[in-house]
């Protein structure tokens, strides 16, 4: 596992650092726009109240894969914060921050322990279920209402949405050429 951050560690190279910054900002921007567009779509209320695809959650997962643990947490934090500012629902931070962070923590743990035996889609699936469960827990605490009845529905929604977004993230990382990740171009003989 790569060390998260240390103050004195020298940057690998100027180019790598810039690329990291650009990719990080790009992921946050894409997550914000995608969540914003998604919020305009009709909600999938049939499955569970408040259930949505959560396409924006691809960003932390991709950040975890191509950047690293620390950057994935940064993407999540920025996504929550900027998302709250963009949509104007600052109280939404109460729900999005704990669930996003915990889901990511679980994903990090899974990625660095059992990845390859379970796929990226599976990691995302479990993360989504954790996300929904934490959100339900927070909602129960905030409203003081026992919302446990929604758990099976939200877990099912998380299962489907998580698998979908996970597959998407997997194919994005798989299909993008190495040059995007800063792979060194082979010198032409």
């Amino acid at each position, binding site marked *: 596992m790569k060390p998260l951050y240390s103050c004195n560690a020298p940057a690998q190279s100027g180019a790598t650092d810039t690329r990291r910054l650009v990719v990080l900002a790009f992921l946050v921007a894409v997550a914000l726009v995608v969540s914003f567009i998604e919020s305009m779509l009709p909600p999938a209320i049939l499955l569970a109240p408040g259930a949505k695809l959560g396409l924006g959650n691809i960003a932390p997962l991709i950040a975890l894969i191509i950047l690293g643990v620390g950057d994935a947490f940064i993407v999540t934090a920025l996504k929550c914060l900027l998302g709250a500012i963009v949509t104007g629902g600052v109280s939404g931070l109460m729900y999005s921050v704990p669930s996003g962070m915990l889901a990511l923590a679980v994903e990090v743990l899974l990625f660095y322990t059992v990845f390859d035996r379970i796929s990226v889609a599976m990691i995302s699936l479990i993360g989504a279920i954790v996300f929904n469960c934490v959100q339900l827990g927070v909602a129960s605490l905030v409203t003081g*209402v026992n919302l446990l009845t929604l758990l*099976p529905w939200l877990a099912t929604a998380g299962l489907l949405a998580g698998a979908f977004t996970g597959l998407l993230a*997997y194919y994005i990382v798989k299909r993008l050429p190495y040059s995007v990740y800063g792979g060194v171009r082979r010198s032409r003989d």
Partner: protein
Amino acid sequence: MNFDNVKKVKCSKAFTVLDIIIVAVIAVAIGVSAWLIYRKPALTVTVTAPDYARTFSLDEDRTVVLEHITVHIENGKVWVTDADCADKVCERTGVISRGGQSIVCLPHGVVIRIGGESDLQWELGR
């Protein structure tokens, strides 16, 4: 850029065998929790009078004839007829069917109560 991770993901499969097992386990867990949460709790009807106390199942149809009162249990509903008191409050209570509801006849000291797990406790907003 974490090149190792990218390489690992690029070389990984979209699905693995373990995935299918875990999804099956999660699906079963969701099913069981849904069953636990949504099952109808078994309700009982307790009839108590000064010299009488018995508990019946709400699901079994029966008629309990007491000295001053007749209790009907039918189709998950309970009501009282043939009360020989003056006020007839118990008869006018009507039909009860949910956990926690009761019919009381004060003149004869008869209490009919639907007990067991209350099915109201799982309702949202309560």
